[in-house]
């Protein structure tokens, strides 16, 4: 059995190496951009006013795809919540007290990491990063918070409220784009502002902040669900 597994692994790795080698063998990097990419690179900064070209593509040119990604994440969080549902009156087991080092370090680190996460998504149109990255950093702060105060119980209410409000506002801004500007999720509903400043790029900073809050709330909900089944006592008595 073990020989079979190892030989299977070797075959898979060998095939992958062969494919990669064949792909790489006659690869020479392009010197010019293709048609779509050159359009984005030439017209993007003027049309959207965002200094980070990746953000202008993700939020404005391909905004509908971003909406789809956020929906997928929402569905994942909802399904995990459905599967890991805990009854209110189910028996709970007490968790071990967190160590003093962890609690002290968490008190110092949590505000700083939260600040970095918020910085990443507010400056999404100027520097690398954006809603998804900032949201993931916020969720990693939430893990630290959960493991440092393992005794206390945390409610879902605030996370659900944040997620619902930001998701609704995201779609609302998209629809406002149809009414006030060229189309769904167009960023011209707000003035473009001065290129490279914090308040520039029209609606892009607003949309990306909302995406950041929504992604952060969704990932935190998943972590919270998984954290709560740790204390659930499901011995069959």
């Amino acid at each position, binding site marked *: 059995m073990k020989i079979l597994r190892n030989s299977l*692994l070797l075959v898979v790795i060998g095939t992958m190496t062969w494919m990669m080698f064949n792909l790489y063998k006659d690869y020479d990097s392009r010197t010019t951009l293709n048609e779509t990419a050159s359009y984005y690179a030439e017209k993007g900064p003027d049309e959207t006013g965002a200094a980070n070209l990746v953000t202008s593509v993700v939020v404005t040119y391909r905004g509908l795809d971003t909406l789809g990604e956020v929906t997928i994440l929402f569905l994942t969080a909802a399904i995990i919540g459905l599967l890991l549902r805990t009854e209110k009156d189910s028996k709970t087991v007490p968790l071990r007290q967190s160590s003093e080092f962890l609690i002290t370090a968490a008190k110092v680190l949590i505000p700083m990491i939260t600040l970095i996460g918020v910085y990443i998504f507010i400056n999404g149109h100027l520097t690398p990063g954006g809603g998804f990255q900032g949201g*993931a950093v916020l969720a990693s702060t939430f893990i630290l918070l959960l493991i440092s105060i393992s005794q206390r119980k945390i409610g879902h209410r605030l996370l659900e409220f944040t997620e619902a409000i930001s998701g609704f506002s995201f779609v609302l801004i998209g629809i406002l784009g149809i009414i006030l500007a060229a189309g769904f999720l167009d960023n011209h509903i707000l003035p473009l502002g001065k290129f490279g400043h914090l308040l520039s790029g029209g609606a892009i900073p607003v949309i990306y902040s909302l995406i950041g809050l929504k992604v952060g709330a969704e990932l935190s909900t998943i972590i919270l669900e998984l954290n709560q089944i740790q204390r659930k006592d499901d011995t069959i008595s």
Partner: protein
Amino acid sequence: MIQSVLIILISVVILVMAFVAIYHKSLQVAVIASGIISLFASVAYIFLAAPDVAITEASIGSVLTVAIFFYVLNKIRHEDIKK
């Protein structure tokens, strides 16, 4: 030149950690090894001029995934003891 050397070093670390993740007996070590893969992959993405992807990989691959795996492992181990 120095960039290529660094990328090759990072790739070697990733490969070694991938083998650790597959062959190590302890599941905890395997999970941590998979987290280290993501951490080094995010450094590689920075060298390949993709800082956006690097931030995502660092926060999701090496923090959230590892945490979720540990939560699930903890739950499974408890149920093993009870049986």
